């Protein structure tokens, strides 16, 4: 039983939303693989943490799920972005950009 910080949960949620926006509806395994790929395999997430995160996003109404059939003719649960999710993605992306910009100013060499 590990402790999960809310910050980590938050970024995971952002990555999930972005992935769904870019890729369209996708199942859990696919989302996990895609996140790893997009991070250039720098981020090695524990796939198990994804499912509670997906549930949370679903409870908050940012994503919706349906059972469907995968490429290999397997039954899988597909997740898609909702309109609310799209708006949330925009909001969070902007927040991240602002945050990184501010921190960057602190970390940049003194301009004097």
């Amino acid at each position, binding site marked *: 039983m590990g402790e999960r910080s809310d910050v980590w949960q938050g970024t995971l949620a952002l990555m999930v939303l972005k992935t769904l926006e870019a890729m369209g509806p996708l*199942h859990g*395994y696919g989302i996990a693989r895609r996140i790893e790929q997009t991070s250039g395999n720098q981020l090695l997430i524990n796939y198990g943490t994804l499912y509670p995160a997906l549930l949370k996003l679903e409870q908050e109404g940012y994503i919706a799920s349906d059972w469907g059939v995968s490429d290999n003719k397997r039954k*899988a*649960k597909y997740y898609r972005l909702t309109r609310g999710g799209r708006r949330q993605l925009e909001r969070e992306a902007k927040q991240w950009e602002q945050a990184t910009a501010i921190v960057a100013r602190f970390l940049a060499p003194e301009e004097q």
Partner: protein
Amino acid sequence: MRQLRAWFQRLRALPISEQSERDLSAELESHLQMHIEDNLRAGMSADEARRQALLKLGGVEQVKEHYRERRGIPLLETLFQDLRYALRMLRRSPGFTAVAVLSLALGIGVNALVFSVINALLLRPLPVERPGQLVFLENKSFNSQSFPNYRDLRDRNTTFSGLVGYRIAPMELESTGGATRIWGLLATGNYFDVLGVHPVMGRFFHPADDLRPRESPYAVLSYNAWRGRFGGDPAIVGKTVRINRLPYTVLGVAPPDFHGTELWYWPELWVPMMMEPQIENYTGTGWLDNRSTWDTWVLGRLKPGVSGAKALANLNTIAAELAREHPENNEGLQFKLAKPGLAGDYIGGPARAFTLGVLGLAALVLLAACANLASLLTARAADRQREIAIRLSIGAKRSRVVRQVLTETLVLSLAGGAVGYGLAFLLSEALTRWRAPMDFPVQFDVNPDWRVFLFALAVSIAAASLFGAAPAWRASRTDANAVLKGGGASWGRSRLAFRDLLVVLQVALCFVLVAACLISLRGLQQTLKMRLGFEPEDVSVVGFDLGLAGYSDEKSRALQQRVLETVEQLPGVLSAAYSNSVPLSIDQSNTTVYPPDKAGPRCSDGISATYYQVAPGFFATMGTRLLAGRDFTWHDDDNSPRLAIVNAAFGRQVLHSENAVGKHFRNGLSGPLVEIIGVVEDGKYESLTEFQAPALFWPILQNHNSTTTLEVRSSLPAAQMVREMRQAVAELDPQLPLYGTGSLNQMLGFAFFPTQAAAIALSAFGVLAIMLAVTGIHGLVSYAVARRVREIGIRVAVGARPSQVLRLVLGRIMTLIAVGSAIGLVLALATGQVLASVVYGASSRDPKTLAAVVATIALLGLVSSWAPTRRALRIDPVRALRCE
């Protein structure tokens, strides 16, 4: 917002469906399959592919657990689980559960009942508008004022938006059932307006209806009177009723929950104060203008924003003015304010003291029940150590285990509380319906409301924390390893330390409660034996009020004498007389008398004495001894000089003389001198707790009173005698309503009632305490024996004699009982004062009573240990060593 949606979704998911679990398993399974396929494509072997997939997922069960935690509300789910488990555990041991719930029900129930009474008397507001603004006026000497003083206060004050005056008044009412004496209220015209009550039919009277004496023959009926005496007649408004044989118009009917402003007196009707001369029919100076009779109760509504202190200051300023204007009556006048509802502090004070004292005792009973339960539960917890150890070792959080134990205690406690509340509900209904054994309409509405419910709930939860703390703490400290290794068998030495304390506590509490019970019973016994100043055995009484029936003075004198003559002729009558009232009944009157030799006596030299107007033969009939001088004769009438007979205490206190015959005193500050012609023995007049009160007897021929009590001493049984007396009166006036009929002992029920009630209540507590202590000690000894079966078996096998086994089993318990008794004894002696205020004649220092208590406790200990001890003595060593 989204958070709210999330929580709502989680709540919805609470009844966990199988479908949800199936979906979860399916989703994870499909995830793994896809991952395995990818791994196979990447070249791993089948086994490796699966292993890698599982590792990357992080363990299926763990993922599922995290998922479940997010899906529902784990706290609620575990709570339900704990609840179901607790119920299952309790169902498994029905005996224990029954005893526990019963003990708690008794403890919580009795507290709820007492609180119900306290609520009715002290907490519940009157059913009027803004009751917080109402205050009751008292002064230093009385809890009532004179009517002229009331009028001055009403007109001169600046801090009250209204002041009302009222007076309890018996009246003769003619209704469909005939003429009866009922109890009503004389109230000033602004009564209903100031209180802010609205009629349910018709209207009330207003100040304009109460201006001049005898001009406003109106009546307002109480709801109960309207339904009971007039059959709920829908056309009652405007009808005429005859009160004291005169016509009154019914103005309206009061709402069903309004019973006046005194909680203990429920009048049947209200009449404007200006009708007082007709209602009370006193001869002599008009009561409405008499400053020396202090019997108007005054209630006021403070102006908004005015504090009690400000109003009191204003009142005392007026008091000073009144003292200046009328020094002979109002000298030293000073007011106090009190909470309305209990006749100021006259009833309020003792009522508060008594009920709070009883609440204290009830709390002790609950404490005893909790101690009982705590010891039973710790015993059970010791049994379940293995189960707890196993749960801890497979990974349960300690906090979860403790929470489960606490849930069990809470379930027990709430169950006990519910049953207790139910009992209290039934008992308080019975109490509300009960009527005191007297002719006066005392009743209380002690039905429980939301406050009592909340109180019962709070007490249940508090009780749960009290007795649940110990087992919960025990559970949290379980060392799983030690328990699983050693099997948890204790040899009973040091492990019993906490349970020992509980036994001591229980015994001490039981001692105190049993002591209270026996002391009060003894006090009651003393009360019954005390000297009353008359012999009530063989005396029957019948009461009637000729003034209320419309008789003039002359006619009532004549009727009284004719009744006496008739009754004296009846067979079996040893002696007969009549008077205005008898001692220790509800109708008592006082006057202030002054010694004769002071020139111009002042208010403060006066001594208050109870007075009676009696016919010749009164003392012989009542069995009061004449110590000196003579009784009245039929010649002591209006033409004779003023005479009186006094009791010995009067002689001592007013005239400082042992034999007052021939001496004089003054009745009232400016009254004429009165000669004393006889001295009778001391007695009790107003209450059983008074001591050597002065009393004064007037000859009824000189001081006429149309309120009459007929007393007859006879050898016939009371029922028969009363029948004959009623017949004799009926022959002379068939319409005359009679009241207060019966043997004198029955009539005295009123005076003895408080002591009897207290004794019954305390006995009930004592019995409860004994029941709890017996079950507690029995449980503990049984448990101790059961735990030590092996040890006892071994000892017997190596040759222990029965007396040694006995000492082993009982030794500890007996020591504990002794220690508990000692503590209880100290507590009982210390709280003796409290008890004395509750029960007259109770003394906690009476050695015989204390010895009886000690004997009771010892007996209790023996009885409760009897069965388990016999079991211990019968232990077959072979069987004992074999099992276990």
